[in-house]
């Protein structure tokens, strides 16, 4: 089954690398241009549930890697098909300096909050996303806080440790 899907993918798309690390898991690595088409292809093949979008910061090779995790819904209650057991992990890498990518909300509507989160924490701008407003954070960060070059200690010292203890302040006065 998975092999058949692999063949289909490789036949349809030119620059996809598909490998199956273990049973029920397919890892697809594509160039960022092909992501949308591969996603819609997979969706048409029944993998219509976008479980998660996450992001990895490969700081050495100056890349940000976006990871889309897809799975299929159960067809009937009695038994699994191995298709429904399968989890598809679709990876693509984009440049770190010019961190822009296309939004997948046209294909998966529920990608909206995931992309807002990634935009907030990794500073990736998604074209075609209708509201990239802050989701979690209260404060503004000059470098997005989940990037590896964000110096947490320094930030904490600058922000939280700079706020004095009230007792000391009262003594000083």
């Amino acid at each position: 089954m998975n092999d058949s899907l692999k063949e289909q993918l490789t036949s349809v798309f030119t620059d996809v690398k598909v490998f199956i690390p273990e049973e029920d898991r397919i890892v697809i690595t594509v160039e960022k241009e092909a992501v949308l088409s591969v996603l819609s292809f997979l969706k048409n093949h029944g993998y219509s549930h976008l479980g998660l979008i996450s992001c990895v910061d490969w700081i050495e090779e100056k890349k940000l890697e976006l990871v889309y995790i897809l799975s299929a819904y159960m067809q009937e209650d009695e038994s699994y098909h191995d298709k429904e057991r399968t989890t598809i992990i679709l990876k693509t890498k984009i440049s770190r300096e010019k961190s822009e990518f296309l939004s997948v909300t046209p294909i998966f509507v529920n990608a909206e909050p995931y992309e807002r989160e990634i935009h907030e924490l990794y500073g990736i701008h998604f074209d075609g996303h209708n509201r990239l407003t802050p989701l979690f954070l209260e404060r503004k960060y000059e470098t997005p806080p989940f990037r590896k070059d964000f110096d947490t200690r320094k930030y904490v010292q600058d922000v939280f440790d700079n706020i004095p203890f009230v007792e000391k302040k009262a003594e000083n006065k």
Partner: protein
Amino acid sequence: MAYAYFSGRDDYHFDHQEITHMDRNQLTKWLKTPVKMGHKYSLHAVYFCTGCGIIEVPPVITARWDAERFGVIPVATPRQANLFLITGYVSVKTLKAIIRTYEQMPEPKFTVGFGSCPVNGGMYWDSYNTIKHLDKYIPVDGWIAGCMPRPEAIFVAVVHLWTLIDKDMADGYKRYRKDYKAYRANQEQLFGTLEWPPLFPIGESK
């Protein structure tokens, strides 16, 4: 020990002799200091369950460790409460709600930080989004250290709170009124501008 308790004040020393024990049935004390006794034995709590501490609260208020024995019950709104229990780490966004809720509680009011995170950040000591010391923003009368403290720790805290109330040392609300300028300054340094007006006139605080 699964927990340690220490006061928000430096001059409070952890001493088993000084600790007030249950004196709810001593009528003379009721006649002498009704207000203190009332506050000791009817602590209506707002459990501000920010993090993992939420797990410790249900056993405390239900059949296992029935906190209602001591008159400690959770209430619906801060207006009705006089004990503010912050269980778990405090993120920047949560702090806003905490300050607002604290200012909405009627005086006298007592605050207890539950777990290591509100004390000094705990395991979030270098997090980009978790304020480390809660008592920089609102006054805290007592801490329950530990990650996580056992539910009994809450009762130890309550007993220590009785002692503090007896000794007039549970004066967090007075400190807040006295140093309101400093507290407000800290809050504004963190948030920029606050969208609610000052609780007390700034000029009054000296």
